[in-house]
């Protein structure tokens, strides 16, 4: 019946729970340190990725498309359109007799659709109260940290032509 006997003289519970609490904590701290360093490497790789994207960035070419007729909207009025693709919603505001401005309608915070508030004369995001200047799309207030991309407009005859996007 020797084969039934355990080789060790230690109690069974010590064999089954052989890792001491202190030792276990010791190993866990080392593992956490390794994990933190790997995360640091991940952050570095992320920065390298941004650098590579910056170095190989090519200014995209945009198509030219008529988006409105002159006088189509009243002063202080708004027209919504899509540019450069059907998924990119934009907002055009007639700020003066011969002044039109146009921006991407996507808030730079979390992509909610901005609208023009005629009373406060600014573009407002209803989700988190981000406000943008209607003059240049700059952030006036709220969580967005980047201005709205501006749609470059040109007047040709009676047509307003969208010719590009300025980030």
């Amino acid at each position, binding site marked *: 019946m020797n084969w039934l006997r355990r080789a060790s003289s230690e109690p069974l519970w010590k064999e089954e729970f052989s890792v001491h609490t*202190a030792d276990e904590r010791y190993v866990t701290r080392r593992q956490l340190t390794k994990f933190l360093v790997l995360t640091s490497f991940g952050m570095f790789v992320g920065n*390298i990725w*941004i650098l590579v*994207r910056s170095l190989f960035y090519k200014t995209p070419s945009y198509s030219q498309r008529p988006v409105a007729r002159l006088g189509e909207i009243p002063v202080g009025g708004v027209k919504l359109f899509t540019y450069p693709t059907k998924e990119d919603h934009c907002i055009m505001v007639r700020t003066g007799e011969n002044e039109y401005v146009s921006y991407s309608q996507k808030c730079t915070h979390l992509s909610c659709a901005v609208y023009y508030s005629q009373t406060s004369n600014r573009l407002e995001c209803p989700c988190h109260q981000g406000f943008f200047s209607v003059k240049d799309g700059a952030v006036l207030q709220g969580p967005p940290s*980047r201005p709205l991309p501006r749609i470059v407009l040109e007047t040709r005859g009676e047509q307003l032509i969208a010719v590009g996007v300025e980030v």
Partner: protein
Amino acid sequence: MQPPVELPPKTRGLTAIAGAMALIAVLLIVQIWLLSAALESFLAGHRHTALPAAVFSGVMFLVCLGLYLFVDRVDSEVRSGEER
């Protein structure tokens, strides 16, 4: 004046590891902020910020790596001391 208490090697090793971990954690927080700031800047069209951000991030990663190697060395010393 009493002589300083000599701590066991394992306790000293744990203290060193905890200190290194705290430093690595601080560096990591700065790196996370740097990555988000660089990305924000890139999306805003300011592409000239990417190079200094990458360089500083690399330096911080190297410091983290150095601290990890230090922790590894301390750990192996403690372990070899225990075996003896």
